[in-house]
């Protein structure tokens, strides 16, 4: 588990170093995500039970980790009062449009290919 945590932190720090060296738009942890995915795909032996345990624990409670940043919402209550309708309308409208469009495009794309061998049946929610 210690090694697994170190692997996650090392991937993030490598990502951050790459970001500042190459002036990339993505933040360090997101670059680290892709780096670790590449490393795990290339070296399946790194996918230890310890890594599953540590990543599973972090991901199960990922919501908690957003709370300190999320409490920052209270600093913008005056903006919410001043621009209630455009703020709520824009936020709700654009978020739900994007959610539904993304899901439907991939769902329909999947259905078009559902007859191909190895179609996505196994990953359909009942």
């Amino acid at each position: 588990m210690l090694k697994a945590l170190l692997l996650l932190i090392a991937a993030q720090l490598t990502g951050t170093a790459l970001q500042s060296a190459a002036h990339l738009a993505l933040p360090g942890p997101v670059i680290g995500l892709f780096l670790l995915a590449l490393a795990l795909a290339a070296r399946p032996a790194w996918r230890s039970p310890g890594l599953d345990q540590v990543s599973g624990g972090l991901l199960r409670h990922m919501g908690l980790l957003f709370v300190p940043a999320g409490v920052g919402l209270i600093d913008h209550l005056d903006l919410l009062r001043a621009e209630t309708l455009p703020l709520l309308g824009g936020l709700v409208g654009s978020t739900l449009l994007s959610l539904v469009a993304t899901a439907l495009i991939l769902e329909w794309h999947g259905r078009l290919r559902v007859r191909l061998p190895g179609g996505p049946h196994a990953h359909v929610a009942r």
Partner: protein
Amino acid sequence: MLTLPAELAACPLLWPGVTLAAYAIGTTIQHRLRGLALANPVLIAILLVGALLKATSTPYAVYFAGALPIHLLLGPATVALAVPLVAALPLLRRSLSGVALALVAGAALSVASGLLLVKALGGSSSLALSMAPKSVTTPIAMALAQNLGGLSSVAASLAIAGGILVAIAAKPILALCRVRDWRAHGLAAGTAGSGVGAAHAIRLHQTAGAFAGLAVGLNGLVTAVLVGPIARLCGF
């Protein structure tokens, strides 16, 4: 009006403890309400901590500095999304073109509709430009809003608020649209709701979490490229 005892206020464990307690209360409430989506633990925790800060006149900056140990784990947790992603690689290979199409369409629609809705409803252009990049992960949203002429702190709050909305609304709305594929559910939650959306998806299903993590990463790139041209097209 509450005053915290000086020893308590100075204890470095105070704000991490409060944050953990508020989130635990949130998960208990949601559990008691049989998983009611509206009783989102992140939202409940934000409201509880926010109320406590107001009651004790604690500035947000003081709270954030105190709760930093929890915030710091967000980096390794983001990296950890690589684990379900690698598990889903065979699935991803089979749906690569669909993923690319859905992601670019969802990202572009989020930016354009955010700009146009704020404008149509009479909002300021500063609000519209802070709304435009709000579906990407917070650090990218902040940088993009700044470049466009919006406010980075407003963009950060909108990004998290959008994610909470996704966590609340994704399941019922996608069921209404007859979306049954976990890949579609996850990709949509990550594209529209970034990190908080991905946190929601990973609790639903491993494949949904994998595609949500992928969407958070790729949407950062796609939106960074598209947001400027779309803003110009929309007259900003």
